[in-house]
């Protein structure tokens, strides 16, 4: 098992970090070189990268907020046809967007930040819908009705009953939908038409340019919020182990 961890961490992530801080990798050198230097100066961030970080963050945070809040309300009204919500989730995002591009152009949101947000909403919303559906148990529904019958206002019911119970699920949903947007490439490239330069679009662009150092930097930056979310949510993601030994 250790070789899996070795491969995971040391080689893959290690190479990514090394490439991000290096400026040359001449063949046949095994390791990249020129760490923190490029002709005497080294800039981890450039203007394009900074703009892209800002754009990606804004997009992902907005999408996460939107889909979590709407998905939370919508999943309360989910019926037995929840399984149908899986379908758009199963189709490759880039294919779905290629089929919808015509409509995005017609309503005038093609190649705009708003258009990419709308496209990503179509991907993340079904996820939020399915994810939050189990939260609305019969018990909770009954508690809501009881609370309202006893005269509690909607705000009181929400803040004192639903809120505390929903917080873990909503938090996890927020993080997951954030990552759906953060990692998205297909929507940004099809609907964004190359003009909405998210970090994932930038990684591909740098690969096309054969600029592996900037591609590594952009990839590392993509990994940072995901790493933080992983640290926070580790306990929700994993079940209790270990097992009793052999």
């Amino acid at each position, binding site marked *: 098992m250790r070789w899996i961890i070795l491969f995971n961490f040391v080689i893959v992530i290690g190479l990514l970090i090394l490439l991000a801080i290096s400026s040359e990798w001449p*063949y046949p050198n095994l390791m990249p070189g020129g760490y923190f230097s490029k002709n005497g100066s080294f800039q981890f961030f450039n203007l394009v990268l900074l703009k892209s970080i800002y754009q990606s963050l804004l997009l992902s945070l907005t999408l996460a907020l939107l889909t979590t809040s709407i998905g939370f309300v919508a999943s309360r009204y989910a019926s037995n046809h929840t399984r149908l919500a899986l379908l758009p989730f199963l189709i490759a995002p880039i294919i779905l967007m290629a089929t919808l*591009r015509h409509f995005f152009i*017609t309503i*005038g949101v093609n190649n705009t930040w708003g258009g990419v947000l709308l496209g990503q909403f179509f991907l993340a919303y079904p996820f939020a819908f399915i994810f939050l559906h189990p939260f609305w148990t019969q018990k909770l529904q009954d508690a809501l009705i009881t609370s309202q019958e006893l005269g509690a206002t909607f705000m009181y019911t929400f803040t004192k009953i639903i809120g505390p119970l929903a917080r873990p699920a909503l938090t996890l949903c927020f993080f997951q939908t954030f990552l759906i947007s953060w990692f998205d490439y297909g929507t940004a490239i099809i609907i964004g038409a*190359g*003009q909405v330069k998210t970090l994932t679009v930038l990684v591909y*662009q740098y690969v*096309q*340019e054969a600029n592996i150092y900037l591609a590594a930097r952009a990839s590392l930056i993509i990994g940072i919020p995901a790493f933080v979310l992983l640290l926070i949510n580790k306990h929700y993601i994993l079940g209790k182990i270990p097992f009793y030994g052999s």
Partner: protein
Amino acid sequence: MAMWGGDPMINQYMNDFIIPHLKDHFNIQLDIAYAQGNTIVSQIMAEKVAKSLYNSYDLVWINGETFYQLRQLDALMGNWTSKLPNARYVDFDNPYIGIDFNQPIEEYECPWGSVQFTLIYNNKYIENPPLTRAELLQFVKKYPGKFTFDMGFTGLTLLKSWLIDFSGSPNGLKGPYNPDLYQKLSKQLWDFVFEIQPYLWKKGLTFPESVSAMHQLFSSEELWITMSNNHTEVDNKFYQGVFSQSARAYVPEYGSIRNAHYLGIPIKASNPVGAMIVTNFLISPKAQFQKADPLVWGDGTVLKISSLPDSLQSKFDNIPHFISSPDINDPTVKALSEPAPEYMIKLAEDFRKVILKQE
């Protein structure tokens, strides 16, 4: 502006020189979208079908079959290039500049740069590079896996030059597209490709997607020959640190294709005037001189040097930093004209069908 983004030096020229200059002098914010060829055509076509009010792009970097397809769609603005003040310096009479893939440009696009295809070899391993197809066949048999061509524009340009070579004359494909001629010549072409295929990189079962990927393979010496549509790229890549000092560029005996690349304005551009101002700056002597330097890009100028003021003429005649680029003004360097765009479209389609067995 939609442009090919596969070369970091070109991107740097645009980001570090053009964009700031446009902002400072014309208060124009130029945003670059990386898209090329059929991706641009597909986008513009989708916008036409959806009856979009405006196109996504105000300016597109195009040539050849892209120009042809956009004209087919009636998607380009016309009658604008003569309005540009700097158009008086452009060498429209030059057949490699005023004609795009056998199509008169007729003010639907403005020339931006002029280049010629070269093969680039590694002098460390190759003393005498293959100058003919027969020599290339000998070379690949002797050194299997060291040569290939890419699936993109550059690889197709090489295939076109072989097609012209099979016609027996540099003007063999001149004039409108001739399907019967294409059928006859392409059969010979594919027979030749089949003959060299087993000795190509990865046994010819897969080809690099782009010329950038080929340059990486060349720099790691996995390939001993690469290629470029730009005759000065060998020097440009040396300055980038991608190629070593042993890289040399040459034009084979059968010649290579010389052409120009252009800027077009989509018919529903939201800011056509802005696009014209940008184009005017891009064809200005200042911008043309800046990009002619291999330290920056090494792209040939479209300007008629004799029409420039004397001080500028001497600057263009003495562009520094060339090392191994062939002099395309040398009469011994054989230049071929681009054939009609349908040849390129058919070649791309048949390459997928015949060689890759992909329909």
